[in-house]
């Protein structure tokens, strides 16, 4: 499997929000990134998705209350990680394509369709894009589904998936604590706990925890503020 870590250090000219130099010979250029921790879990009857809320340009936090859970359709959401511009652009294009497709069909679209639309864009423009996306939602045919479209444009369905720079810190926690057959509240607690742990350790993740659950009844959104996050460390 190819290591794609080098992609982060591409030397294309990047402009930060108002170049920090303004006259100094050395210019610092940064891309706006959602380095992030994102997570999505399936349960019987729907999905739970969660994300942190930090967007960085280099070492500066450009937005500390970002909403990385983006609505693609009524019951299909995506979690965005990677370049903020790339993921926002892709999400808006897919939302348009899916809305058009849904009107043509006169039916709510399938989560698998949305995931394939993401995969089509992410794979075709894989050299130009930095986007890691989790597509999650509910449809009548297969119920709650989570699809992972990481950098490079792969597509795979998983019962539980994490993404972003902070995900590396919670693979172990996820493997140990996820059990098939959990209900919605258990999934919410698991996601909140996992995200808190990742935000504690990853410098590029932080802020508040945004959660959403998607089921046949609809979408329910929650925000857990910084001081209300589950605490794990005693020192």
């Amino acid at each position, binding site marked *: 499997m190819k290591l794609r870590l080098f992609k982060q250090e591409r030397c294309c000219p990047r402009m930060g929000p108002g170049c920090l130099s303004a006259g100094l010979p050395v210019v610092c250029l940064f891309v706006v990134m959602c380095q992030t921790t994102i997570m999505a879990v399936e349960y019987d009857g729907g999905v739970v998705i969660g994300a942190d809320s930090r967007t960085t340009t280099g070492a500066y936090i450009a937005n500390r209350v970002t909403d990385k859970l983006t609505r693609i359709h009524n019951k299909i959401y995506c979690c965005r990680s990677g370049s903020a511009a790339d993921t*926002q652009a892709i999400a808006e294009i897919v939302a348009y394509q899916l809305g058009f497709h849904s009107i043509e069909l006169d039916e709510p679209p399938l989560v698998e369709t949305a995931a394939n639309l993401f995969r089509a864009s992410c794979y075709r423009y894989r050299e130009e894009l930095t986007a890691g996306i989790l597509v999650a939602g509910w449809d009548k045919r297969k119920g709650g589904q989570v699809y992972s479209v990481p950098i490079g444009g792969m597509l795979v369905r998983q019962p539980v998936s994490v993404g972003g720079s902070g995900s590396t810190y919670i693979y172990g926690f996820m493997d140990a604590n996820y059990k098939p057959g959990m209900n919605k509240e258990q999934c919410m607690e698991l996601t909140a706990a996992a995200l808190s742990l990742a935000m504690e350790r990853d410098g590029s993740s932080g802020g508040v925890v945004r959660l959403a659950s998607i089921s046949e009844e609809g979408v329910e959104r929650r925000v857990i503020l910084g001081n209300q996050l589950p605490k794990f460390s005693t020192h």
Partner: protein
Amino acid sequence: MATLTAVRPAFGGFSFDNCKRNAVLEVEASKVGCSVPAARKTGTTICGVVFKDGVVLGADTRATEGMIVADKNCSKIHYISPNIYCCGAGTAADTEMTTQLISSNLELHSLSTGRLPRVATANRMLKQMLFRYQGYIGAALVLGGVDCNGPHLYSIYPHGSTDKLPYVTMGSGSLAAMAVFEDRYKPDMEEDAAKQLVRDAIAAGIFNDLGSGSNIDLCVITKSKVNYIRPHDEANKKGVRVTELEALKL
């Protein structure tokens, strides 16, 4: 990994032919001992805040060319539509041209729909254009306005990402201005409190950032009217020259 790319003649978009020439010129110039001229950038502090009845946008007025101040009183708050204005940081030409292009397209769109344009529309147009140029257009914008859905404020980055927030700052002085906002912002402020807050944020940028300076411009946008106050505060007044005789008396 080997990528198969078909070679096509370039059409539209940017032509990078001059980049090789510029690189050669740079080497030649440094050999002789002179340097290439730098693009004029607005060092800048720009910011915006949403208050009870609308938005307040603020900007400093210094434009720099390398280490020299090219324009002591340039206008960084650009007109987009009667109810939408946009502050621009980054490369001066890019912000000027981008805002003018979107203003023109938005006017046509508004005539076509028969409605007052929405801030979200201007945001979409700007972000799609900037994403298309992949960050090569160095325009970092603070877009604010009032439409049928209330007051809205967006920050737009050169690569095409946007954030919708109650208060935003951009430019080299953005950290200083954000410090003021994070300390004193409250939701649903009155107009005077909001104007004072924006004035103080820009002042923080002017006095603590080398790339920002001169005066403070404000633009207050509400449902009924737009108040373009230029200058709101002459933070840096030039001293008055006196003759030697008068100086002796002082």
